[in-house]
Protein backbone atom coordinates (compact mmCIF):
# COMPACT_ATOMS: atom_id res chain seq x y z
CA UNK A 1 0.00 0.00 0.00
CA UNK A 2 1.91 2.98 -1.17
CA UNK A 3 0.79 6.53 -1.74
CA UNK A 4 0.66 5.97 -5.50
CA UNK A 5 -1.83 3.17 -4.97
CA UNK A 6 -4.18 5.58 -3.22
CA UNK A 7 -3.71 7.96 -6.13
CA UNK A 8 -4.73 5.14 -8.47
CA UNK A 9 -7.81 4.35 -6.38
CA UNK A 10 -8.82 8.01 -6.45
CA UNK A 11 -8.25 8.14 -10.21
CA UNK A 12 -10.33 5.00 -10.82
CA UNK A 13 -13.17 6.41 -8.67
CA UNK A 14 -13.02 9.71 -10.59
CA UNK A 15 -13.06 7.91 -13.95
CA UNK A 16 -16.09 5.85 -12.92
CA UNK A 17 -17.86 8.90 -11.48
CA UNK A 18 -17.32 11.08 -14.55
CA UNK A 19 -18.11 8.10 -16.80
CA UNK A 20 -21.41 7.56 -14.97
CA UNK A 21 -22.31 11.21 -15.33
CA UNK A 22 -21.86 11.03 -19.13
CA UNK A 23 -24.57 8.36 -19.12
CA UNK A 24 -27.07 9.67 -16.59
CA UNK A 25 -27.13 13.48 -16.93
CA UNK A 26 -30.16 14.87 -18.76
CA UNK A 27 -28.46 17.54 -20.86
CA UNK A 28 -26.47 16.30 -23.85
CA UNK A 29 -24.11 19.27 -23.56
CA UNK A 30 -23.17 18.37 -19.97
CA UNK A 31 -22.66 14.76 -21.04
CA UNK A 32 -20.21 15.78 -23.77
CA UNK A 33 -18.23 18.04 -21.43
CA UNK A 34 -18.05 15.16 -18.95
CA UNK A 35 -16.87 12.89 -21.78
CA UNK A 36 -13.94 15.21 -22.60
CA UNK A 37 -12.92 15.24 -18.91
CA UNK A 38 -13.31 11.46 -18.90
CA UNK A 39 -10.94 11.16 -21.88
CA UNK A 40 -8.26 13.17 -20.12
CA UNK A 41 -8.63 11.16 -16.89
CA UNK A 42 -8.40 7.95 -18.87
CA UNK A 43 -5.18 9.25 -20.44
CA UNK A 44 -3.71 9.58 -16.93
CA UNK A 45 -4.78 6.00 -16.22
CA UNK A 46 -2.87 4.85 -19.32
CA UNK A 47 0.21 6.70 -18.08
CA UNK A 48 -0.13 4.82 -14.78
CA UNK A 49 -0.20 1.60 -16.82
CA UNK A 50 3.09 2.75 -18.45
CA UNK A 51 1.47 3.05 -21.88
CA UNK A 52 2.43 6.64 -22.70
CA UNK A 53 1.81 6.25 -26.45
CA UNK A 54 -1.73 5.12 -25.74
CA UNK A 55 -2.19 7.97 -23.26
CA UNK A 56 -1.21 10.56 -25.88
CA UNK A 57 -3.58 9.03 -28.43
CA UNK A 58 -6.43 8.82 -25.92
CA UNK A 59 -6.02 12.44 -24.83
CA UNK A 60 -5.69 13.80 -28.38
CA UNK A 61 -8.18 11.64 -30.28
CA UNK A 62 -10.36 9.81 -27.74
CA UNK A 63 -10.98 12.89 -25.61
CA UNK A 64 -10.21 15.96 -27.70
CA UNK A 65 -11.23 15.12 -31.27
CA UNK A 66 -14.23 12.95 -30.35
CA UNK A 67 -15.30 15.60 -27.83
CA UNK A 68 -15.18 18.29 -30.48
CA UNK A 69 -17.24 16.16 -32.89
CA UNK A 70 -19.85 15.54 -30.19
CA UNK A 71 -19.95 19.23 -29.22
CA UNK A 72 -20.59 20.17 -32.84
CA UNK A 73 -23.39 17.61 -33.02
CA UNK A 74 -24.97 18.92 -29.80
CA UNK A 75 -24.91 22.46 -31.18
CA UNK A 76 -26.54 21.33 -34.43
CA UNK A 77 -29.20 19.34 -32.59
CA UNK A 78 -30.02 22.18 -30.18
CA UNK A 79 -33.32 22.90 -31.92
CA UNK A 80 -34.38 19.27 -32.06
CA UNK A 81 -37.51 18.38 -30.17
CA UNK A 82 -36.56 15.97 -27.43
CA UNK A 83 -39.38 13.60 -26.77
CA UNK A 84 -39.55 11.97 -23.38
CA UNK A 85 -39.38 8.42 -24.59
CA UNK A 86 -37.30 7.01 -21.78
CA UNK A 87 -37.62 3.33 -21.11
CA UNK A 88 -39.95 2.17 -18.34
CA UNK A 89 -38.45 1.43 -14.93
CA UNK A 90 -38.68 -2.40 -15.10
CA UNK A 91 -37.02 -2.38 -18.54
CA UNK A 92 -34.24 -0.16 -17.17
CA UNK A 93 -33.80 -2.55 -14.23
CA UNK A 94 -33.51 -5.56 -16.52
CA UNK A 95 -31.01 -3.71 -18.70
CA UNK A 96 -29.05 -2.61 -15.63
CA UNK A 97 -28.85 -6.13 -14.20
CA UNK A 98 -27.79 -7.60 -17.56
CA UNK A 99 -25.09 -4.96 -18.01
CA UNK A 100 -23.87 -5.54 -14.46
CA UNK A 101 -23.59 -9.25 -15.29
CA UNK A 102 -21.45 -8.47 -18.35
CA UNK A 103 -19.23 -6.23 -16.22
CA UNK A 104 -18.99 -8.92 -13.54
CA UNK A 105 -17.94 -11.49 -16.14
CA UNK A 106 -15.18 -9.19 -17.38
CA UNK A 107 -14.11 -8.45 -13.80
CA UNK A 108 -13.78 -12.19 -13.20
CA UNK A 109 -11.55 -12.45 -16.24
CA UNK A 110 -9.38 -9.67 -14.82
CA UNK A 111 -9.22 -11.20 -11.34
CA UNK A 112 -8.62 -14.80 -12.44
CA UNK A 113 -5.95 -14.66 -15.14
CA UNK A 114 -4.62 -17.75 -16.89
CA UNK A 115 -1.37 -19.12 -15.47
CA UNK A 116 0.65 -18.17 -18.55
CA UNK A 117 -0.26 -15.04 -20.46
CA UNK A 118 1.10 -15.15 -24.00
CA UNK A 119 3.35 -12.28 -24.97
CA UNK A 120 5.36 -11.17 -27.96
CA UNK A 121 7.31 -8.52 -26.05
CA UNK A 122 10.63 -10.42 -25.87
CA UNK A 123 10.55 -11.04 -29.63
CA UNK A 124 9.80 -7.37 -30.25
CA UNK A 125 12.79 -6.29 -28.17
CA UNK A 126 15.11 -8.90 -29.71
CA UNK A 127 14.61 -7.65 -33.25
CA UNK A 128 13.95 -3.96 -32.62
CA UNK A 129 17.61 -2.95 -32.99
CA UNK A 130 17.60 -4.04 -36.64
CA UNK A 131 14.98 -1.42 -37.48
CA UNK A 132 16.94 1.40 -35.86
CA UNK A 133 13.90 2.49 -33.86
CA UNK A 134 14.05 3.04 -30.12
CA UNK A 135 10.32 3.06 -29.34
CA UNK A 136 8.97 -0.51 -29.28
CA UNK A 137 5.41 0.71 -29.94
CA UNK A 138 6.53 2.51 -33.10
CA UNK A 139 8.40 -0.67 -34.00
CA UNK A 140 5.20 -2.70 -33.77
CA UNK A 141 3.21 -0.06 -35.68
CA UNK A 142 5.63 0.43 -38.56
CA UNK A 143 7.66 -2.78 -38.78
CA UNK A 144 5.89 -5.83 -37.39
CA UNK A 145 2.30 -4.79 -37.96
CA UNK A 146 2.78 -2.26 -40.75
CA UNK A 147 -0.14 -3.75 -42.65
CA UNK A 148 -2.49 -2.88 -39.75
CA UNK A 149 -1.21 0.67 -39.72
CA UNK A 150 -1.60 1.04 -43.48
CA UNK A 151 -5.16 -0.30 -43.40
CA UNK A 152 -5.98 1.94 -40.43
CA UNK A 153 -5.14 4.97 -42.58
CA UNK A 154 -7.40 3.58 -45.28
CA UNK A 155 -10.20 3.20 -42.72
CA UNK A 156 -9.83 6.88 -41.79
CA UNK A 157 -10.06 7.85 -45.47
CA UNK A 158 -13.08 5.60 -45.99
CA UNK A 159 -14.81 7.18 -42.98
CA UNK A 160 -14.11 10.60 -44.45
CA UNK A 161 -15.61 9.50 -47.78
CA UNK A 162 -18.65 8.26 -45.86
CA UNK A 163 -19.06 11.54 -43.99
CA UNK A 164 -18.71 13.55 -47.21
CA UNK A 165 -21.21 11.42 -49.07
CA UNK A 166 -23.83 12.25 -46.44
CA UNK A 167 -23.88 15.84 -47.69
CA UNK A 168 -27.01 16.94 -49.54
CA UNK A 169 -26.55 17.04 -53.32
CA UNK A 170 -26.62 20.81 -53.41
CA UNK A 171 -23.64 21.11 -51.06
CA UNK A 172 -21.40 18.57 -52.79
CA UNK A 173 -18.02 20.06 -53.52
CA UNK A 174 -18.68 22.81 -51.02
CA UNK A 175 -17.00 23.49 -47.72
CA UNK A 176 -17.78 22.26 -44.21
CA UNK A 177 -19.59 24.64 -41.90
CA UNK A 178 -17.80 25.42 -38.66
CA UNK A 179 -19.86 28.42 -37.63
CA UNK A 180 -21.84 26.22 -35.30
CA UNK A 181 -19.01 26.16 -32.77
CA UNK A 182 -18.58 29.83 -31.98
CA UNK A 183 -19.16 33.28 -33.31
CA UNK A 184 -15.70 34.69 -33.94
CA UNK A 185 -14.80 37.06 -31.11
CA UNK A 186 -11.63 38.82 -30.03
CA UNK A 187 -10.60 36.19 -27.45
CA UNK A 188 -10.97 33.37 -29.96
CA UNK A 189 -9.10 35.32 -32.61
CA UNK A 190 -6.28 36.04 -30.16
CA UNK A 191 -6.08 32.37 -29.19
CA UNK A 192 -6.07 31.32 -32.85
CA UNK A 193 -3.15 33.66 -33.50
CA UNK A 194 -1.22 32.68 -30.38
CA UNK A 195 -1.56 28.89 -30.33
CA UNK A 196 -0.75 27.64 -33.85
CA UNK A 197 2.97 28.56 -33.86
CA UNK A 198 3.42 26.62 -30.61
CA UNK A 199 1.08 23.82 -31.63
CA UNK A 200 2.72 23.29 -35.00
CA UNK A 201 6.14 22.96 -33.36
CA UNK A 202 4.73 20.52 -30.78
CA UNK A 203 3.01 18.49 -33.51
CA UNK A 204 6.14 18.21 -35.65
CA UNK A 205 8.23 17.37 -32.59
CA UNK A 206 5.82 14.59 -31.60
CA UNK A 207 6.03 13.11 -35.07
CA UNK A 208 9.85 13.27 -35.11
CA UNK A 209 10.41 11.93 -31.61
CA UNK A 210 8.00 9.04 -32.21
CA UNK A 211 10.77 6.82 -33.58
CA UNK A 212 12.65 6.92 -30.28
CA UNK A 213 10.23 7.92 -27.53
CA UNK A 214 6.46 8.00 -27.05
CA UNK A 215 4.81 10.03 -29.78
CA UNK A 216 4.30 9.41 -33.46
CA UNK A 217 2.42 10.25 -36.61
CA UNK A 218 -1.04 10.00 -35.10
CA UNK A 219 -0.42 12.04 -31.99
CA UNK A 220 1.46 14.70 -33.95
CA UNK A 221 -1.17 14.73 -36.69
CA UNK A 222 -3.93 15.21 -34.12
CA UNK A 223 -2.17 18.26 -32.65
CA UNK A 224 -1.68 19.75 -36.14
CA UNK A 225 -5.34 19.08 -36.95
CA UNK A 226 -6.41 20.82 -33.74
CA UNK A 227 -4.40 23.92 -34.70
CA UNK A 228 -5.93 23.95 -38.19
CA UNK A 229 -9.44 23.63 -36.75
CA UNK A 230 -8.78 26.42 -34.27
CA UNK A 231 -7.76 28.78 -37.07
CA UNK A 232 -10.80 27.81 -39.16
CA UNK A 233 -13.26 28.13 -36.26
CA UNK A 234 -11.89 31.56 -35.38
CA UNK A 235 -12.61 32.57 -38.96
CA UNK A 236 -9.01 33.48 -39.81
CA UNK A 237 -8.96 30.92 -42.59
CA UNK A 238 -11.87 29.52 -44.55
CA UNK A 239 -12.36 25.74 -44.60
CA UNK A 240 -11.29 24.30 -47.96
CA UNK A 241 -13.83 23.08 -50.49
CA UNK A 242 -13.87 19.29 -50.44
CA UNK A 243 -13.31 19.22 -54.20
CA UNK A 244 -10.07 21.18 -53.88
CA UNK A 245 -7.26 19.22 -55.61
CA UNK A 246 -4.65 20.14 -52.97
CA UNK A 247 -6.91 18.90 -50.21
CA UNK A 248 -7.45 15.58 -51.93
CA UNK A 249 -3.76 15.21 -52.75
CA UNK A 250 -2.70 15.81 -49.14
CA UNK A 251 -5.30 13.30 -47.96
CA UNK A 252 -4.01 10.44 -50.09
CA UNK A 253 -0.29 11.18 -50.25
CA UNK A 254 0.49 9.56 -46.88
CA UNK A 255 -1.18 6.19 -47.49
CA UNK A 256 -0.01 6.28 -51.15
CA UNK A 257 3.66 6.67 -50.22
CA UNK A 258 3.29 4.06 -47.47
CA UNK A 259 1.81 1.67 -50.04
CA UNK A 260 4.53 2.52 -52.58
CA UNK A 261 7.27 1.75 -50.03
CA UNK A 262 5.40 -1.42 -49.11
CA UNK A 263 5.32 -2.52 -52.76
CA UNK A 264 8.97 -1.59 -53.20
CA UNK A 265 9.64 -4.08 -50.41
CA UNK A 266 8.80 -6.87 -52.91
CA UNK A 267 11.81 -5.86 -54.99
CA UNK A 268 14.21 -4.61 -52.32
CA UNK A 269 13.54 -6.96 -49.41
CA UNK A 270 11.52 -9.84 -50.82
CA UNK A 271 8.29 -9.13 -48.93
CA UNK A 272 5.40 -6.67 -48.92
CA UNK A 273 6.03 -3.86 -46.42
CA UNK A 274 9.55 -5.10 -45.66
CA UNK A 275 12.37 -2.57 -45.50
CA UNK A 276 15.84 -3.20 -46.97
CA UNK A 277 18.32 -3.71 -44.14
CA UNK A 278 20.13 -0.57 -43.11
CA UNK A 279 17.50 1.72 -44.64
CA UNK A 280 14.62 0.87 -42.33
CA UNK A 281 14.76 3.95 -40.14
CA UNK A 282 15.01 6.61 -42.88
CA UNK A 283 12.15 4.95 -44.74
CA UNK A 284 9.99 4.74 -41.63
CA UNK A 285 10.64 8.38 -40.80
CA UNK A 286 9.77 9.39 -44.38
CA UNK A 287 6.51 7.44 -44.14
CA UNK A 288 5.75 8.99 -40.75
CA UNK A 289 6.28 12.52 -42.09
CA UNK A 290 3.86 12.18 -45.02
CA UNK A 291 1.45 10.23 -42.86
CA UNK A 292 1.42 13.03 -40.28
CA UNK A 293 0.35 15.48 -42.99
CA UNK A 294 -2.37 13.18 -44.33
CA UNK A 295 -3.59 12.31 -40.84
CA UNK A 296 -3.76 15.97 -39.81
CA UNK A 297 -5.83 16.83 -42.88
CA UNK A 298 -8.06 13.75 -42.56
CA UNK A 299 -8.72 14.27 -38.84
CA UNK A 300 -9.42 17.95 -39.39
CA UNK A 301 -11.88 17.25 -42.19
CA UNK A 302 -13.55 14.44 -40.22
CA UNK A 303 -14.05 16.79 -37.28
CA UNK A 304 -15.31 19.57 -39.58
CA UNK A 305 -18.07 17.31 -40.90
CA UNK A 306 -19.84 17.09 -44.24
CA UNK A 307 -19.84 20.08 -46.61
CA UNK A 308 -22.70 22.48 -45.96
CA UNK A 309 -22.45 25.29 -48.43
CA UNK A 310 -20.85 25.97 -51.77
CA UNK A 311 -18.19 28.64 -51.83
CA UNK A 312 -19.43 31.83 -53.41
CA UNK A 313 -17.16 32.85 -56.21
Amino acid at each position, binding site marked *: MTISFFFDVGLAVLILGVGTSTIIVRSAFAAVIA*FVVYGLLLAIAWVRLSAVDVAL*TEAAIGGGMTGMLLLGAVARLRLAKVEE*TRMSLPACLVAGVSCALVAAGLATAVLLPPAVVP*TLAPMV*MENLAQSGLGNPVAGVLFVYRALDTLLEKVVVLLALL*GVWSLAPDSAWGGMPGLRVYAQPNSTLTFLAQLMPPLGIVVGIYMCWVGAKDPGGAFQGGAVLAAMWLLVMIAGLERPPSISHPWLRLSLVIGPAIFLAIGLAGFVLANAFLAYPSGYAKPMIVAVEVVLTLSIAVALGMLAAGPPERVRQQ
Partner: protein
Amino acid sequence: MNTGMLFGLCGAALVGLGLYGLVTNPEPLRKILAFNLLGSGVFLVFGVISKRAAAAGLGGDPVPQAMVITAIVVAFAATAMAIALALRLFEETGQATLSPDDPGGTSTDGGNS
Protein backbone atom coordinates in the same frame (compact mmCIF):
# COMPACT_ATOMS: atom_id res chain seq x y z
CA MET B 1 -4.60 -5.79 -5.70
CA ASN B 2 -2.19 -3.83 -7.85
CA THR B 3 -2.49 -0.91 -10.26
CA GLY B 4 -3.19 -3.12 -13.26
CA MET B 5 -5.92 -5.07 -11.57
CA LEU B 6 -7.53 -1.88 -10.25
CA PHE B 7 -7.79 -0.32 -13.70
CA GLY B 8 -8.86 -3.66 -15.13
CA LEU B 9 -11.85 -3.68 -12.78
CA CYS B 10 -12.45 -0.03 -13.65
CA GLY B 11 -12.50 -1.00 -17.34
CA ALA B 12 -14.95 -3.84 -16.65
CA ALA B 13 -17.28 -1.43 -14.85
CA LEU B 14 -17.00 1.04 -17.74
CA VAL B 15 -18.05 -1.67 -20.20
CA GLY B 16 -21.18 -2.33 -18.13
CA LEU B 17 -21.88 1.38 -17.82
CA GLY B 18 -21.45 2.04 -21.53
CA LEU B 19 -23.64 -0.91 -22.42
CA TYR B 20 -26.37 0.35 -20.09
CA GLY B 21 -26.29 3.81 -21.69
CA LEU B 22 -26.34 2.28 -25.16
CA VAL B 23 -29.42 0.20 -24.38
CA THR B 24 -31.49 2.67 -22.37
CA ASN B 25 -30.92 6.08 -23.92
CA PRO B 26 -33.10 6.81 -26.97
CA GLU B 27 -31.05 9.69 -28.41
CA PRO B 28 -28.58 8.58 -31.11
CA LEU B 29 -26.01 11.10 -29.91
CA ARG B 30 -26.08 9.70 -26.38
CA LYS B 31 -25.90 6.18 -27.76
CA ILE B 32 -22.74 7.13 -29.67
CA LEU B 33 -21.28 8.62 -26.51
CA ALA B 34 -22.14 5.49 -24.50
CA PHE B 35 -20.61 3.32 -27.20
CA ASN B 36 -17.37 5.27 -26.90
CA LEU B 37 -17.44 4.67 -23.15
CA LEU B 38 -17.95 0.95 -23.76
CA GLY B 39 -15.08 0.91 -26.25
CA SER B 40 -12.65 2.66 -23.92
CA GLY B 41 -13.56 0.15 -21.19
CA VAL B 42 -12.75 -2.71 -23.56
CA PHE B 43 -9.39 -1.09 -24.40
CA LEU B 44 -8.61 -0.73 -20.70
CA VAL B 45 -9.43 -4.38 -19.93
CA PHE B 46 -7.40 -5.48 -22.96
CA GLY B 47 -4.46 -3.30 -21.99
CA VAL B 48 -4.46 -4.55 -18.42
CA ILE B 49 -4.79 -8.24 -19.20
CA SER B 50 -1.95 -8.10 -21.71
CA LYS B 51 0.18 -5.92 -19.43
CA ARG B 52 0.61 -8.94 -17.14
CA ALA B 53 2.85 -10.43 -19.75
CA ALA B 54 5.13 -7.41 -19.77
CA ALA B 55 8.63 -8.73 -19.99
CA ALA B 56 11.93 -7.90 -21.61
CA GLY B 57 12.46 -5.00 -19.24
CA LEU B 58 9.48 -2.99 -20.41
CA GLY B 59 6.73 -1.37 -18.39
CA GLY B 60 4.11 -2.75 -20.73
CA ASP B 61 3.76 -5.05 -23.70
CA PRO B 62 4.19 -2.97 -26.89
CA VAL B 63 2.07 -5.22 -29.15
CA PRO B 64 -1.28 -4.65 -27.39
CA GLN B 65 -0.39 -0.97 -26.94
CA ALA B 66 0.01 -0.57 -30.68
CA MET B 67 -3.29 -2.41 -31.18
CA VAL B 68 -5.08 -0.09 -28.73
CA ILE B 69 -3.69 2.97 -30.56
CA THR B 70 -5.05 1.62 -33.84
CA ALA B 71 -8.35 0.85 -32.12
CA ILE B 72 -8.73 4.37 -30.71
CA VAL B 73 -8.21 5.85 -34.17
CA VAL B 74 -10.66 3.47 -35.82
CA ALA B 75 -13.19 4.21 -33.06
CA PHE B 76 -12.81 7.91 -33.79
CA ALA B 77 -13.39 7.35 -37.52
CA ALA B 78 -16.50 5.27 -36.77
CA THR B 79 -17.76 7.93 -34.34
CA ALA B 80 -17.36 10.65 -36.95
CA MET B 81 -19.34 8.55 -39.41
CA ALA B 82 -22.06 7.79 -36.85
CA ILE B 83 -22.43 11.43 -35.89
CA ALA B 84 -22.73 12.46 -39.53
CA LEU B 85 -25.48 9.83 -39.93
CA ALA B 86 -27.32 11.06 -36.82
CA LEU B 87 -27.18 14.66 -38.02
CA ARG B 88 -28.42 13.68 -41.46
CA LEU B 89 -31.30 11.76 -39.84
CA PHE B 90 -32.22 14.89 -37.94
CA GLU B 91 -32.02 17.03 -41.08
CA GLU B 92 -34.31 14.67 -42.98
CA THR B 93 -36.83 13.74 -40.31
CA GLY B 94 -36.50 16.45 -37.67
CA GLN B 95 -36.11 13.76 -35.04
CA ALA B 96 -33.29 13.51 -32.54
CA THR B 97 -34.58 10.43 -30.76
CA LEU B 98 -35.11 6.82 -31.66
CA SER B 99 -38.40 5.86 -30.10
CA PRO B 100 -38.33 2.36 -28.59
CA ASP B 101 -42.12 1.93 -28.68
CA ASP B 102 -42.71 2.94 -32.26
CA PRO B 103 -40.56 0.92 -34.64
CA GLY B 104 -42.13 2.52 -37.70
CA GLY B 105 -41.55 6.06 -36.49
CA THR B 106 -37.87 6.37 -37.21
CA SER B 107 -37.59 4.12 -40.22
CA THR B 108 -39.01 6.74 -42.55
CA ASP B 109 -36.40 7.18 -45.21
CA GLY B 110 -34.95 10.50 -46.21
CA GLY B 111 -37.31 12.61 -48.24
CA ASN B 112 -40.52 11.56 -46.49
CA SER B 113 -40.48 14.37 -44.01
